[in-house]
């Protein structure tokens, strides 16, 4: 009859019971100085081993996921787009609402790689578009709620609809970039970032419209539309037309004209979509 309830006894203060030798190889480092019922559970060798095994399994699984995640989602590339700080976000939002005084729109490079958004206000980021998209869905729910038209599946419908329009825009622009054979370093994620900036103006317009009425909605939306138009033209001009300008050879008029038309078309689509996605929210 040598202690039938050893599993439930407090063994923390019992150095003479021989559990010390078995506890050391467990090596989990849990503090066993406290005389509490939990340490009896932790001090038991079986659960020690079980915990060690479990934690080693978890570490292995984490390694596996880390190794393979890069194959499906380019995590390291995405991290660049989320390297933002508060000052950058503030300056970028100011730029989105008032781009008229900003002089230098070039992205600074650091040995062939663009500088992180934290250090350069012209660099595209995915933080603002992602946050703005989610806020847009929430504000749409709020707007529908004030008109007694809300139901939870409408939220999902709004999100899905906005996402579908975004996808369609990205595909259309990629197709036209291919057709016009523009050699640009505008990646798809860059494009998603630029196209996501219009949600900021949309949120502003809808919120002002909810607070102050339809006229204010139209005014604020008009202002945001013009700002986004100018912002897109000034940003895309450097990306799409830079090739021709930077090469230095005399530019053939037709080609450059086509690229200019493309830039104007992309920029003009932004106000249209901004209106289309918000007019049914403010009545």
């Amino acid at each position, binding site marked *: 009859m040598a202690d039938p309830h050893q599993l439930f006894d407090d063994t923390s203060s019992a150095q003479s019971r021989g559990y010390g030798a078995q506890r050391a190889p467990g090596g989990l480092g849990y503090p066993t100085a406290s005389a509490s019922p939990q340490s009896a559970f932790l001090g038991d060798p079986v659960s020690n081993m079980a915990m060690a095994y479990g934690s080693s399994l978890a570490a292995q699984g984490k390694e596996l996921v880390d190794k393979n995640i890069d194959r499906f989602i380019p995590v390291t590339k995405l991290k660049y787009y989320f390297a933002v700080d508060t000052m950058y976000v503030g300056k970028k939002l100011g730029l989105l609402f008032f781009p008229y005084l900003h002089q230098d729109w070039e992205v600074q490079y650091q040995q062939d790689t663009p500088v992180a958004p934290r250090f350069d206000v012209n660099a595209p980021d995915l933080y603002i578009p992602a946050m703005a998209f989610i806020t847009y869905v929430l504000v749409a729910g709020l707007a529908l709620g004030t008109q007694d038209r809300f139901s939870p599946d409408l939220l999902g*419908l709004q999100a*899905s*609809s906005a*996402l*579908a*329009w975004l*996808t*369609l825009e990205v595909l259309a622009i990629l197709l036209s970039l*291919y*057709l*016009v*054979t523009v050699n640009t370093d505008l990646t798809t994620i860059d494009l998603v970032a630029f196209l996501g900036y219009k949600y900021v103006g949309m949120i502003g317009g809808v919120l002002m419209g909810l607070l102050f009425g339809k006229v204010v909605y139209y005014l604020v939306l008009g202002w945001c539309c013009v700002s986004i138009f100018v912002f897109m033209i000034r940003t895309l001009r450097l990306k799409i037309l830079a090739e021709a300008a930077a090469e230095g050879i005399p530019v*053939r008029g037709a*080609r450059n004209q086509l690229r200019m038309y493309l830039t104007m078309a992309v920029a003009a689509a932004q106000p249209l979509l901004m209106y*289309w996605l918000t007019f*049914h929210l403010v009545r």
Partner: protein
Amino acid sequence: MAFTLYSLLQAALLCVNAIAVLHEERFLKNIGWGTDQGIGGFEEEPGIKSQLMNLIRSVRTVMRVPLIIVNSIAIILLLLFG
């Protein structure tokens, strides 16, 4: 506007089907968009028309087999779930 991602997928499937059914001899050659009429030398500017012809030709070549599979799946799903 009930424009969901699912309807976007449906539209994309229909568009790719439309490109795949263009008949080479009866149609494309008659409007001068045949596959052997476009590869005219290595000029500097490919131009929109030759880019489009390239795109159509590559879509038809690449998507022939996957389209069979995706269409079969779509038919079965629509039969089962309406």
